[in-house]
C-alpha cells in the first residue's frame, strides 16, 4: 500500500488559497463592477481550469496529501471568518452560504447519491426552523439539543412522504415532494399558534452559557461582529456534516446508494434492499436540512412561511446541480454564486431567477457535470493499491 508516485502538495495549497481568496473577494467587493468581475473570473477559472487539466492535478495533489489538505481547508475557512470579523453584512452572507451548503449536503445524499428527488428541501429546512423556534421559546432545552432535535423531527416528518415516494418514480415522485412543499407553506400560513403569515421570533443562540447575540468586545477600540461566533459554530457543524457525507460516499454505503440510483433492479438480484437505502438516504438528507433550517432560524432571529417557498427549494436544487451533482465540494462555489451574487447585485435582484436560469444553462452547456463534476469513488484517497 505504498504511494508510488505522490503528487506534490502545491497544486492543492494553491487551490485552497485561490478558493479562500475568491470567497473573500466576492464577499468584500464593493461596487457592482467588482462583484461581476470577481464572480465571472471565479466561474471562468473553474471552467477553464477544468478543461486545462488543472482539476486533475489538484485532485491528485489533494489525494496524495489528504489529511494535510483537509486540515488546511478548514483552517482557511477559519481564517476567512477571522478576516471578516468586523464586517457584519459579509459575515451574515457567509453564514447563509454555509447553511445553504449544509442543506445542499442533505440534497446531495438524497438526489446525488441515492437518486431520490426532493423538490421540497426548503420546506424541510422550514420544518427544522419552526421546530427550533418552538423548542427554544417554550422549553428550556439546551440549544445544542434543540438543533439536533430539529434535525430528528425533520427526518421524522419527512418519513410521512416515504410511502408515496417509494411507490412512485421520476416525475411522479417529484410531484409528491412539490405538493408537500406547498402544503407545508399553506399549513404555516393558516396556523395561528405558529405565527401565521407573520412568522415567529427566535431567540439568540446560547451554548454553555455563552450568548451569541452579544458583540464581542475586547476593549473600547476593538469590537467583533457577533456573527463571528455564529460563523465559527457553523464552520464546525459544516465540517462535521461534510466529513460524514464524504465518508458515506467513500464506503460500502456510498456504493449501495450508487447501485440504488443506477440500477436498483439489477442490484436487488444481489440482495440489495433498495427501499431501505432510499429511506436511509432521504431521512439523513432531511436531518441535515432540518439542522440547517434550525441554524437559519437562530441566525436570522425571525422566520416566516415566506422564507421557505418552492422557489427556495429550487434554489437549493440548483446549487446541488450547478456545483456538480454528487460532489459535496462543488456546493461551496455554487452556493457562493447563488446566494451572494443577488445580494451584491441589488440592481438585478428582481431578475435573479432569470440570471440563475441563464447561468445554470450556460454552465451545464459548457460543463454538463457542473462546476466541479463528481469523480470516481476512492475509498481511501491516495491509497488505491
Amino acid at each position, binding site marked *: *500500500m505504498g504511494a508510488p508516485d505522490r503528487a506534490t502538495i502545491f497544486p492543492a495549497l494553491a487551490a485552497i488559497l485561490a478558493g479562500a481568496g475568491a470567497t473573500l473577494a466576492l464577499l468584500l467587493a464593493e461596487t457592482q463592477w467588482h462583484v461581476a468581475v470577481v464572480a465571472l473570473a471565479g466561474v471562468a477559472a473553474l471552467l477553464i481550469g477544468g478543461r486545462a487539466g488543472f482539476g486533475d492535478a489538484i485532485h491528485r495533489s489533494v489525494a496524495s496529501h489528504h489529511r494535510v489538505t483537509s486540515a488546511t481547508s478548514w483552517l482557511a475557512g477559519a481564517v476567512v471568518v477571522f478576516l471578516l470579523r468586523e464586517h457584519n453584512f459579509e459575515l451574515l452572507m457567509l453564514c447563509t452560504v454555509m447553511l445553504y451548503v449544509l442543506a445542499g449536503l442533505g440534497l446531495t445524499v438524497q438526489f446525488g447519491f441515492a437518486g431520490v428527488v426532493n423538490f421540497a428541501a426548503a420546506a424541510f429546512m422550514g420544518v427544522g426552523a419552526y421546530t427550533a423556534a418552538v423548542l427554544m421559546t417554550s422549553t428550556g432545552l439546551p440549544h445544542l439539543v434543540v438543533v439536533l432535535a430539529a434535525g430528528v423531527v425533520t427526518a421524522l416528518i419527512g418519513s410521512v412522504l416515504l410511502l408515496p415516494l417509494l411507490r412512485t418514480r421520476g416525475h411522479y415522485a417529484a410531484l409528491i415532494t412539490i405538493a408537500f412543499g406547498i402544503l407545508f407553506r399553506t399549513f404555516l400560513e393558516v396556523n395561528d399558534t405558529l405565527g401565521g403569515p407573520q412568522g415567529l421570533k427566535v431567540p439568540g443562540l446560547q451554548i454553555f452559557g455563552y450568548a451569541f447575540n452579544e458583540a464581542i468586545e475586547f476593549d473600547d477600540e476593538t469590537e467583533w461582529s457577533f456573527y463571528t461566533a455564529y460563523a465559527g459554530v457553523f464552520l464546525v457543524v459544516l465540517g462535521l456534516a461534510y466529513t*460524514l457525507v464524504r*465518508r*458515506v460516499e467513500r*464506503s*460500502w*454505503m456510498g*456504493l*449501495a446508494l*450508487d*447501485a440504488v440510483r*443506477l*440500477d436498483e*433492479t*439489477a*442490484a*436487488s*438480484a*444481489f*440482495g*440489495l*434492499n433498495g427501499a431501505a437505502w432510499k429511506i436511509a438516504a432521504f431521512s439523513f438528507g432531511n436531518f441535515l436540512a432540518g439542522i440547517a433550517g434550525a441554524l437559519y432560524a437562530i441566525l436570522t432571529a425571525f422566520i416566516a412561511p415566506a422564507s421557505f417557498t418552492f422557489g427556495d427549494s429550487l434554489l437549493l436544487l440548483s446549487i446541488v446541480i450547478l456545483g456538480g451533482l454528487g460532489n459535496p465540494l462543488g456546493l461551496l462555489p455554487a452556493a457562493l454564486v447563488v446566494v451572494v451574487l443577488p445580494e451584491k447585485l441589488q440592481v438585478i435582484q428582481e431578475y435573479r431567477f432569470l440570471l440563475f436560469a441563464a447561468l445554470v444553462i450556460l454552465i451545464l452547456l459548457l460543463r454538463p457535470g457542473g462546476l466541479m463534476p463528481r469523480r*470516481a*469513488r476512492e*475509498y*481511501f484517497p491516495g*491509497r*488505491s*493499491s
Partner: protein
Amino acid sequence: MTHLLEVSGLSVRFGGVRALDGLDLHLDEGETLGLIGPNGSGKTTSFNTITGFVLPAGGTVRFAGEDITAQPPRHVARRGIARTFQRLRLLTELSVFDNLMVGQHLTLDHGIWANLLGRGRLRGAIARQTDEMRTLLRHFSPTLPDRLHEPVSALTMIDRRRVEVCRALARSPRLLLLDEPSAGMTPDETAELMRDLQNVKAARPSLAVILIEHDMAVIERVSARCVVLDYGRKIADGSYAEVTRDPAVRRAYLGEEADA
C-alpha cells in the same frame, strides 16, 4: 432424494400469453444444465420467476429443500442464487471493483461504525476484497485484474461480459443462472468464456449452473444435460445426444435441419 433446485408446475401469464405453462425442472449440486428453446419460449421468464423478478400464476420453486416461490429477488439472493442478465446490467459509470462489490453486497459490513467512524475495518475489507477479486478475474483474463479500478464503460464487450459473470460469482453462489452469456459475442469469444467458466467450475465442484443458450454447439461443449422449452412448455429433458435426436425438438427448434 431432494434436488438442489426443484421447479414444479411453474406457470406465468403475461395478459393472455402463457409465458410458462407448467414447467418442471430439477437440478443437483454441481450439475450444469443447458436451457434451450426458440425465442419467446420462456427461458428468461423461467430465470426471472426463479429469482423473484416475475410472480408466477401457479407452481412452486424449491431451493435447498425450502420453498422460495414468489420471494423477492433480494431474499432469493440471500439463499445463494446469483444470475447474469441477457442484456448486461452493469453499473457502467462505476469501476470494475465497485461492480463486483455490488455482487458482494450481502457479504459487506454496512454498519455505521465500520463505514463512518472507525474505518480501519473498511480498509482491511477493501484490501481483502481487492485480492480476492483479482484472483477471480484472473480466471477469465490475464489483463482484467490490472483494470480493477477502471470504469466499466472503458471495457470491451467481452470484458464487460466477464465482469458480469464475475459479479455473479463473487459471493460464491450455490446456483448460478447465466442468461445467454454468448449474446453479442463472436464464436471465439464465446468459446473462450465457456472454457474459463469450466475452469471456475472445476475449482468449485459443488456449484450448479443453468445456462441459457441459443447456440447448440456451446451447449454440447459445456453441459451434460439439457432442457428444451417451446411455448412455455418443456418438450425434452435429457443428455445432449438424446435431446437432439428427439423428433419434437427437431420440429420445434432445429426446424428445417430436421428434414435435412
